[in-house]
């Protein structure tokens, strides 16, 4: 099956290894992965800040880069939701784990003996309704899933929220990191949550935070 990989801007610039892991998982599941070279960003930062004209410019760039006739897969629930719900063109867009789960992917047993906690990122959970697929895939890699007290609680990133409300944003990250503290690693499907939580954990020495694609492809250890 041919799919278009949308790296997302954070994936491209900050977490290229996670995107490589995503591409490897797709190939291992038998997909022919294309990387449209004209891609940049879905425009969500502008859309969420109310700058619709700016967001439209990015949406047009997105439309020039991606074909509406092939599925788009991206390692981010939030960007997948943006593409699914807030663009003038209709795409068949999937968050990575939802797609892998739907085609019955069998990731290798990279997490045998590891205790992992999964953070249900907000837009993946509430706007795309995806919650079990990431857990199912992690379980297939041999991980023992440690339930979070509040898996659905926002980690505090929220795009521009993280700098408009820095105190609250950091306090929310601390709650999430503390909740994940009983596991070997906290796993998230979103580069936004990942960047925010890792950045806070780097200051406090709190839990290890890993992208889902990395946890599935290479293990979370």
């Amino acid at each position, binding site marked *: 099956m041919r799919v278009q990989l949308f*790296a997302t*801007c954070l994936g*491209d*610039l*900050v*977490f*290229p*290894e996670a*995107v*490589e892991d995503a591409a490897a998982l797709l190939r291992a599941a038998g997909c022919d992965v294309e*990387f449209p*070279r*004209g891609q*940049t*960003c879905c*425009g969500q*930062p*502008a*859309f*969420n*800040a*109310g*700058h*619709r*004209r*700016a*967001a439209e*410019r*990015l949406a047009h*760039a997105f439309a020039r*880069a991606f074909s509406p006739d092939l599925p788009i897969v991206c390692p981010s629930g939030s960007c997948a939701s943006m593409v699914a719900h807030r663009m003038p063109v209709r795409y068949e867009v999937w968050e990575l784990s939802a797609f892998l789960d739907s085609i019955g992917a069998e990731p290798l047993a990279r997490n045998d003996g590891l205790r992992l906690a999964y953070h249900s990122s*907000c*837009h993946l959970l*509430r*706007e795309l309704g995806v919650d079990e697929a990431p857990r199912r895939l992690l379980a297939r890699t041999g991980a023992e899933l440690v339930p979070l007290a509040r898996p659905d*609680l*926002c980690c*505090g990133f*929220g*795009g*521009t*929220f*993280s*700098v*408009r*409300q*820095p*105190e*609250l*944003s*950091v*306090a*929310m990250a601390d*709650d999430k990191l503390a909740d994940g503290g009983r596991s070997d690693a906290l796993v998230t499907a979103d580069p936004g949550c990942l*960047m*925010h939580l*890792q*950045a806070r954990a*780097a*200051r406090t020495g709190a839990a290890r935070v890993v992208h889902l694609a990395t946890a599935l492809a290479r293990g979370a250890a």
Partner: protein
Amino acid sequence: MSFPVLDEHRLAATDAATLRLLTGREEAWAQLDDIEDLRERAHTIRMTAIDDLDAHLDRFVAALEAAGGRAHRCATAEEARATVLRICVDNGAKLAAKSKSMLSEEIGLNTALEAAGIDVVETDLGEYILQLAGDHPVHIIAPAIEKTADDVAALLSAVDGAPVEPRLEALAQAARRQLRRVFEQADVGVTGANFAVCETGSICLVTNEGNGGLVTALPRVHVALLGIERVVPTLDDLSVLLQLLARSGTGQTLTTYTRLLTGPRRKGEDDGPEELHVVLVDNGRSNLRRGRYREMLACIRCGACLNVCPVYRKAGGGAYGPVYSGPMGAVLVPLLRGLEREPHLPHASSLCGACTAACPVKIPLHELLLDLRRDLVGEGIVSRSERLAFTLWSLLWSRPALYRLSTALGRLGRPLGALAGPGRTWAAGRALPPLARRRYRDRA
């Protein structure tokens, strides 16, 4: 304008109370056979009334007057205050006993009555505590949520002139003792109204403490403040909303008291007021009747969105302003007062959508926040520098070559990122994210 995190004392009190309330809601919803169907029906009932609000208000007023009540339509807070004051003065009132009403907070009623020499006493325990403390409510259904038993004991002890133990039972007994005189002597009872039923002209009051019963039965005059959007067509419709209100607010199946009041005391009846006045308050609600913002008028003030909101739970209700807070406040207040006066409220959210998922009448709260942010930009309320930044950014990133160039330059400039602007704000509590040496596109 960013919100600070509550101090430790108030944070702990808020966290425990909201967790109890939100867990209660989740359990109460889980016990219903089909919560989604009920939410959908509730949404339809609310929107039916809102889409044809004038006709529904006319029907309610006609039925109310047929039952012997009097209706007063007020366009503004000022008119509403003047109306209540006139009713009090006409009846020679010296003391008004109040049951909890967020609308009375919205219109600033207490201050207006007190300025005219009328004593006003709150009789809802939470509101009474706040009145003693001189504070505003910080939660629409649990107004004193930030106060602990020790805080309350100190306030009640000061009234008694003797120590009151910080136990729930002792606190409630002390408040009852202190308020007894008010119930007996009040000339006017002032309440809100959770709903108004068009077919019967009834107002519905939902309470847990019994003070609402005393306030509406003992004083000679009862004044009920009603937001014009709170009408429901029939009693059957009301029953749908009542199934959701208490479950969503406190996790109760029903509140301790659900009161349906139809007109004043009739001949041969033993209790009830001689006069019932319903003050119908617009105060900006008509502004919401355009486009998608109409949905906000469906709100039944259950507080579920506050309890699930991570922003509310960290910042507390006071951060949003003196009256409404949490996601419902962040949407409603700018719409009532004007975006230019409340430009920061639409940004008091991480857009996590927990509010939308918790709303019993299916108001798309986080979507409305997005619309308000769009309007902030559209109406030119955002700063010139923010607009310029997003415009420049979108011009660069909508062209792949300029994206590549700007991100390569960005990597070079990254060490300076923590010195100013958003990077500096970010770096106050977090490490700056490392930009990869080779982007994914350079590897693919």
